[in-house]
């Protein structure tokens, strides 16, 4: 009896000891994943109306290019599918046989349906997380005109990115830049992947430094078209002739490089007058002009923080051009860059984490990232020739910049980790990119 009790006690002690050791173990550290892409299977969207073939094809092409542009997804070819090639209709309540998608290594499954009429297209879709039992991550619906099917495809792709990362992709965004492809330096606009290029100005003057308004409806730029002196102009979607802005400002000198505040109500700009070059802010209508720098040195290149409370800029007050950050009222200017003798063209990431800028290294410029406090400073793009004028995509995961690596300047886009570099322009000198906001 006693013996049986003792042995039972022993076993109990033993088991409890082993149980507690399981709890007290050190965690298994999983760090530094390799750069990989999520595998996505896109089923052909079900057509719920006749005559949707062409629209479906354009949609699929847009979706494919949008996923590719994200750099985060690799599409699994239809030939590898074990499940059906065509998507079920979304009101089909039958469960998805997830194993078939898991077996081909899919992380994501995209299903949808298209309804097209002569003047309208409706696309509904959903994104499923295959690894987690085909849990539905996102559903959405887009209505558009039939000729916008490709754009809808990109919008779907951007939503797929959002389903897995929380921030939409940026394939359905635009980039504006200055280009000499027509002979003169004019403002141009293109899709973020380089497609649908079109000229936004044709004034045969010199136009540069385009800057999107936060709502994407207009572009402020610097042009010499008025009295052959630099002044700010505003180009608005749907309006034919761009207008000179800030006409009533009492400036006698040159005005450059207007940049919209994040709320779109003010502009930061650079004004040169009587030998002094300073940074100002002014209301969109020209009221409330305020000199933020009041320094004998040259102060240029204002870049708003995403919350609108601070402005990064460049000043040579210590002898060489360096990055500074100040309050948007001009208070508390503080130098943040100490590496290198020439740092300029700051661009504040929309998520507030980084300021991208160009830094001169060995006679040419590289693109670097620095945090707004100036603590960490890392190179992003370096090349034997110049990489200049970085501009952040609205998702803070990509940047556009101009590079002369092929001789003539072209616009490139790259992921914030340096991957997925691609050139998106060809022909002429292409400079001063500014990546537009999300379009919806």
């Amino acid at each position: 009896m006693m013996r049986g009790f003792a042995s039972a006690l022993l076993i109990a002690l033993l088991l409890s000891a082993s149980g507690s050791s399981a709890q007290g173990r050190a965690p298994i550290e999983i760090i530094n994943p390799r750069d990989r892409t999520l595998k996505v299977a896109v089923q052909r969207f079900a057509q719920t109306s006749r005559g949707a073939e062409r629209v479906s094809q354009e949609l699929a092409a847009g979706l494919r290019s949008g996923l590719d542009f994200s750099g985060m997804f690799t599409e699994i070819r239809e030939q590898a599918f074990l499940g059906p090639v065509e998507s079920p209709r979304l009101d089909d309540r039958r469960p998805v046989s997830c194993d078939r998608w898991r077996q081909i290594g899919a992380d994501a499954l995209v299903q949808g349906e298209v309804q097209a009429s002569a003047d309208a297209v409706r696309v509904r879709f959903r994104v499923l997380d295959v690894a987690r039992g085909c849990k539905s991550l996102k559903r959405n619906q887009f209505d558009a005109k039939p000729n916008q099917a490709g754009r809808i495809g990109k919008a779907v792709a951007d939503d797929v990115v959002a389903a897995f990362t929380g921030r939409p992709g940026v394939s359905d965004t635009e980039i504006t830049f200055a280009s000499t492809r027509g002979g003169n330096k004019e403002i141009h606009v293109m899709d973020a992947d380089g497609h649908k290029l079109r000229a936004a100005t044709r004034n045969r003057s010199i136009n540069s430094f385009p800057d999107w308004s936060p709502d994407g409806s207009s572009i402020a730029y610097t042009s010499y078209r008025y009295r052959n002196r630099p002044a700010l102009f505003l180009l608005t979607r749907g309006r034919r002739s761009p207008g000179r802005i800030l006409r009533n400002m009492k400036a006698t000198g040159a005005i450059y490089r207007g940049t919209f505040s994040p709320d779109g109500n003010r502009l930061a700009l650079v004004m040169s007058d009587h030998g002094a070059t300073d940074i100002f802010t002014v209301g969109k209508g020209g009221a409330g002009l305020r000199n933020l720098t009041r320094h004998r040195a040259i102060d240029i290149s204002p870049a708003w923080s995403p919350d609108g409370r601070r402005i990064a800029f460049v000043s040579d007050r210590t002898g060489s051009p360096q990055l500074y950050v100040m309050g948007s009222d001009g208070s508390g200017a503080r130098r943040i860059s100490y590496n290198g003798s020439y740092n300029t063209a700051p661009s504040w990431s929309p998520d507030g984490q980084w300021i991208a800028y160009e830094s001169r290294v060995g006679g040419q410029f590289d693109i670097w990232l620095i945090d707004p406090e100036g603590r960490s400073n890392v190179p992003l793009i370096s090349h034997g020739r110049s990489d200049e004028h970085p501009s952040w995509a609205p998702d803070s995961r990509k940047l556009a910049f101009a590079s002369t690596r092929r001789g003539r300047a072209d616009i490139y886009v790259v992921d914030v980790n340096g991957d997925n570099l691609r050139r998106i322009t060809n022909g002429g000198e292409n400079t001063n990119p500014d990546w537009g906001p999300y379009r919806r």
Partner: protein
Amino acid sequence: MDAVLETWEVQRQRQYRRFVGFSAGVHLIAALLFLASPNWRSAQRLPGVVRIDLVAVAPPAAVRRPAPKPKAVPKPKVAPKPKPKVKPVPKPPVVDKKVLPKDPVAKPTPKPPPPAPVEEVMEYEDVMAQLRKNAKEDFPEAAPQLASPAARVGPAGGPGRLISAEEAAWRERVRAFVLRGWVLAPGFRSQALVTTVDVRLSASGDVMDTRVVQRSGNPWYDESVERAIQKAAPLPAPPESGSWQFRFSPTDLR
């Protein structure tokens, strides 16, 4: 010619006899010398072997001291067993007696255990007693009897390194498994995100359940972590089923 041949033949025979005689003598001397000297060497070499023999033979004869001790252990075991159970009693002794004299060297030691475990399954205390006494030989016996607890006890109470070596190898394999399935969006890399997940694993490595115990603050990052674990499933069989903790962080702060 014949006579010449005969004398030559006779001479040859004589020479041959002499040679044989001489040769035999030399061989005899050599053999004697050899027998005399190897005796020394064999005497030096043999003790090891002799000891082993005696160890085995000892129980019946009880000649040498070191031998009886190990032997004494199996015998008492056999004795207690029979008491609770009536039938097994006659059999084990018979087997032991037969086996021991036949194979004196190494076999006796492994052989007694098999009969013991088969009949002793219920007697956990006896197994424990044996474990404590035969520190070196407890693993083969304990493992088949009470698979997991006994296996754990051995290493935990004794060396302890055994588990850590096994576990370290397993951890390394699991790390590779999970890392292979983890896809991180470019923007997440530059952030100081740390997510800790408790993963309940079956003995065969199936992921029974995941629970995020420390969130990174970014739900999509947390999801990517859970996804990585689900994609890696089933994991290599863990040294121990139950809850294992995984901590995910991107270290590359570009």
